[in-house]
């Protein structure tokens, strides 16, 4: 039995003198735990707020959405209140500046939202809008972008409306949604006059219902679900909204938790490394205690208790920091939140963070701490004896196994998928491995190959990297991994933007006009020609649905076994198809061929996008019966195409041959290439003025929107990555303080034998330069690898090395290390040479 009482007494005594050093050790986990607790607590609060505000998010008890104007008289009768929203993408024009932009126009009838409100500025804007007539509410981002305000006008289609309020908050909408499609609310009585609802327009009809509390919603849905599905109506209730929003935000919280977990792991490496130094210094005391007859278990207990106490302090500090930090998070995540988060301390998160902190500080401290069990009492007589047989200690391997299991377990807890867990753990271990090998290899290389002829300060600085009790490995790991995270984010962001900007090169199209009605084709083409723009593509589009696949109707399909059944969505969706006998630039033929349709006796062969075909178990030669606006059309799958969806172009899941759909009702898309942003803006404004129903997408708008979204996302991720960097800084500071005495001794010794302060400053600067440079270099290298893998396998874009961001990250991280190191060196350099004699 271990005498815990005695061990505790000794631990208490030991802490009096060395406690401050252990506090330094555990300070490394403070930032990580703070991040973890903040994120978990925020996640808990968010989930609670989503639960509490789910009604406000939907704005109603039930919503029914579809693409056709269907009425629900029985529901309207049952409901206490009913509202209808008709929404679609459309251009709006601000007459004041003559500028235009693609927005989401929402025509509203009724008092939606029934829960919550359309928050406007000024406040009376909402009441004013509800009076109907030529009034509009416009998203605040739009007002800011076009420098217009309340009282100014906005042209939506053919009608010009007065802006009566800026929309501050729309039910269920986040800042990101507002960036992609800013909303413009118009009264329903203005919809027809706008002339925007035409053939081919992608219109959503959403009916909102407020129901009496006595209505059994589940029963009501159960009774009508089938009929709604038949009519391609999708329903949403408060419960389903809560579930889907909760799920997606749980994913976000888990992802952020994972980023925080990396910061915790980095801190643990710092703890492990610092405890290693601590243990090395304690070995003589351990040997004395062994001489006095103390059993190894009791001595181990003395230090384990100290680590536990410090782990507890570090974790509590971290948890407290995290509890405060979470008050900041709603501002950081502002653009992603669909609800107002009611921030309060989540004790679950605090307890989880504290337990995690203690557990990992002990786990990571155990590796070096186990050495204590193997200290020979002979060390009192022969200090060189040290600890014996440590490498063979089975407990050491058990601890290593536990660390890996813990990382896997914790990651699984956050990710919920084994495959992702193994990828994540694998990459973390790989990254640690690379940085560890780099550090070990560097120290080995210096010892083996450092030439005597090298300039003295350089040689001394390099030698310092493997001085006894050095923390080269832990610093390289923490700073390196932090750099890798920041670098990866930075590079990926650039890669994605570059990919989009690619369209600006050569003769790639960069502007697209859609919703052009057949009678407008000539006029729009003329407008392009008059402005000197080429018509790169003219794409006719016909809408249709699938009736049968290989003779199986939707009902037949439902009766099939799970593995044979296709997704119902294939039968429910509206297909927008085009017709042509050739491939376009963004397409590649993978199987079969584009078979033309020459005469009425020919079969019709269509071409499918390969991914879609695969997901829906469609093979070459399969028969598909389409319903082209009431007329059945039997076709066969003649080919599969690979489509690059990331270009400014029209891309289709189904392509028909020429000579089949020419007489079907259709609308058109024109694609052109402008020379610059000004030309794009001018053309867009001219088009909106002449053809208000035609919508325009231009590349600069896509790039702008994407940049804005990526900026918002990367701000959040960089905020989290900051914790890793801060952990690295803390490990750096603590390692500098730990080695301070040794550095003072070295510096005084060098000064005693005649080195000038300037030389010492050069040596110190070079040491931090090598350390920072190597850590940053290793990190940048890892981030290039991670970015390349993510580009190729996740985003499926080609990877291009970019040197400038790479150099920026490298210089910043190295500079920070040198700066911190030098700040610490100044009082070392000031130390008195007589001190060495006195000590």
């Amino acid at each position, binding site marked *: 039995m271990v005498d815990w009482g005695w061990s505790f007494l000794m631990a208490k005594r030991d802490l009096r003198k060395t406690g401050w050093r252990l506090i330094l050790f555990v300070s490394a986990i403070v930032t990580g735990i703070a991040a973890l607790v903040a994120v978990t607590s925020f996640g808990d609060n968010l989930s609670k707020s989503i639960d509490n505000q789910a009604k406000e998010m939907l704005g109603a008890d039930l919503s029914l959405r579809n693409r056709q104007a269907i009425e629900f008289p029985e529901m309207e009768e049952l409901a206490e209140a009913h509202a209808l929203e008709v929404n679609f993408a459309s251009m709006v024009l601000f007459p004041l500046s003559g500028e235009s932009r693609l927005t989401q126009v929402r025509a509203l009838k009724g008092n939606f939202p029934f829960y919550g409100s359309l928050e406007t500025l000024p406040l009376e804007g909402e009441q004013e809008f509800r009076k109907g007539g030529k009034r509009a509410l416009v998203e605040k981002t739009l007002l800011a972008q076009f420098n217009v305000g309340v009282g100014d006008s906005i042209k939506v289609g053919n009608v010009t409306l007065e802006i009566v309020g800026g929309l501050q908050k729309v039910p269920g909408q986040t800042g990101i949604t507002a960036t992609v499609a800013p909303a413009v609310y118009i009264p329903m009585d203005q919809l027809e006059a706008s002339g925007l609802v035409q053939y081919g327009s992608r219109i959503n009809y959403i009916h909102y219902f407020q129901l009496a509390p006595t209505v059994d919603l589940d029963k009501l849905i159960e009774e009508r679900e089938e009929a709604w599905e038949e009519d391609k109506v999708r329903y949403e209730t408060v419960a389903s909204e809560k579930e889907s929003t909760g799920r997606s935000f749980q994913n976000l919280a888990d992802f952020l938790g994972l980023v925080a977990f990396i910061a915790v792991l980095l801190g643990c490496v710092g703890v492990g490394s610092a405890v290693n130094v601590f243990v090395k210094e304690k070995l003589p005391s351990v040997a004395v*205690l062994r001489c006095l007859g103390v059993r190894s278990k009791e001595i181990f207990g003395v230090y384990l208790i100290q680590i536990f106490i410090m782990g507890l302090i570090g974790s509590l500090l971290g948890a407290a920091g995290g509890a405060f930090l979470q008050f900041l998070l709603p501002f950081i995540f502002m653009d992603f939140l669909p609800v107002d988060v009611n921030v309060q301390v989540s004790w679950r998160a605090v307890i989880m963070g504290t337990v995690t902190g203690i557990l990992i500080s002990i786990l990571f401290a155990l590796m070096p701490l186990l050495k204590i069990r193997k200290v020979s009492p002979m060390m009192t007589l022969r200090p060189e004896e040290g600890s014996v047989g440590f490498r063979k200690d089975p407990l050491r391997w058990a601890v290593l196994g536990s660390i890996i299991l813990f990382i896997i377990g914790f990651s699984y807890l956050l990710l919920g998928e084994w495959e992702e867990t193994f990828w994540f753990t694998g990459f973390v271990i790989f990254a640690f491995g690379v940085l560890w090998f780099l550090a070990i290899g560097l120290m080995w290389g210096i010892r083996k190959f450092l030439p005597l002829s090298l300039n003295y300060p350089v040689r001394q600085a390099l030698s310092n990297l493997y001085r006894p009790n050095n923390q080269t490995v832990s610093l390289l790991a923490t700073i390196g991994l932090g750099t890798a995270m920041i670098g990866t984010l930075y590079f990926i962001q650039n890669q994605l933007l570059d990919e989009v900007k690619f369209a600006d090169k050569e003769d790639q199209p960069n502007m697209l006009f859609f919703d052009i009605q057949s009678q407008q084709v000539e006029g729009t083409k003329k407008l392009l020609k008059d402005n000197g723009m080429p018509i790169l593509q003219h794409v006719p589009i016909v809408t249709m649905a699938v009736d049968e696949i290989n003779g199986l109707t939707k009902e037949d399909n439902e009766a099939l076994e799970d593995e044979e059944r296709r997704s119902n969505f294939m039968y429910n969706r509206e297909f927008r198809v085009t017709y042509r006998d050739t491939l376009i630039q963004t397409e590649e033929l993978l199987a079969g061929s584009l078979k033309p349709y020459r005469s009425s006796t020919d079969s019709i062969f269509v071409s499918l996008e390969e991914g879609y075909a695969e997901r829906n178990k469609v093979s070459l030669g399969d028969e598909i019966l389409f319903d082209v606006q009431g007329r059945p059309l039997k076709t066969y799958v003649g080919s599969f195409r690979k489509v690059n969806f990331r270009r400014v172009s029209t891309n289709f899941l189904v392509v028909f041959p020429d000579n089949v759909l020419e007489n079907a009702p259709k609308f058109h898309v024109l694609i052109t290439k402008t020379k610059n942003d000004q030309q794009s803006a001018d053309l867009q404004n001219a088009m909106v003025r002449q053809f208000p129903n035609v919508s325009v997408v231009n590349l600069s708008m896509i790039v702008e929107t994407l940049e804005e979204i990526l900026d918002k996302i990367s701000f959040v991720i960089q905020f989290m990555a900051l914790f890793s960097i801060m952990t690295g800084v803390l490990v750096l500071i603590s390692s500098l303080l730990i080695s301070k005495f040794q550095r003072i001794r070295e510096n005084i010794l060098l000064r005693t034998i005649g080195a000038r302060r300037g030389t010492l400053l050069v040596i110190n600067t070079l040491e931090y330069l090598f350390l920072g440079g190597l850590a940053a270099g290793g990190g940048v290298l890892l981030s290039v690898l991670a970015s390349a893998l993510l580009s190729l396998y996740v985003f499926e874009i080609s990877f291009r090395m970019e040197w400038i961001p790479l150099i920026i990250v490298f210089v910043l991280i190295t500079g920070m290390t040198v700066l911190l190191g030098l700040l610490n060196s100044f009082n070392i350099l000031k130390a008195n040479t007589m001190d060495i004699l006195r000590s």
Partner: protein
Amino acid sequence: MSLFTRGNYFSLKAMSILKVENLTKTYQSANRQLTVLDQVNFEVHPGETLSIVGPSGSGKTTLLGLCAGLDIASSGSIILDGFILESLNEDQRAAVRSQLVGFIFQNFQLLQTLTALENVMVPLELKKRKDAKQKAMELLEKVGLQDRMTHYPNQLSGGEQQRVSIARAFANEPKILFADEPTGNLDTETGEMIENLIFKLNEDERTTLILVTHDLELASRTHHSIHIKGGKLQEAVNG
């Protein structure tokens, strides 16, 4: 704890407190085997004092460590107050040290994080003595450090540190005291004072003393001396 089972213990108390038989210690160094002690034999009776002398690297410290149960021999046997040390594992030997043995080291080996008083209390606390503090204070008074009890080792001079070390060594009322060059790190005057203190306390407490030194004058104050050279026992002096 199987320390006091019959197999490990037999009564030879009346005969010798320490018996060393054919003791050999070898180390594996690089590709060759290094014999540090070679077939050493001697015994010491209770209350006697013995010095081990010899030049540096002769194996005297190794011999002291083996006799005190700090290490185990490659072959041969050591019987310490009836305990056959080579048959005990490290924790069992630690228990023997706690019960029977006191140590004085050349470099004092005080625990730097404990005060003088706490350093002396440790062996008493290990024996669960309720009067640990009282007894430690008495011992520090005996060595003349009544005013330095709450000082940490780095606040004490070399001589004072060694006096704390002596007080600690006598704290658990050991049957046998091992001292490794106890005056090696001290000036002549302080060294002499420490020597006198060790021998006085040893006499008062009737402890057996095994002393490693290369100071022949100090060695002459013990009942017996053995001389080691190249790991072999050369001769017994004084005895």
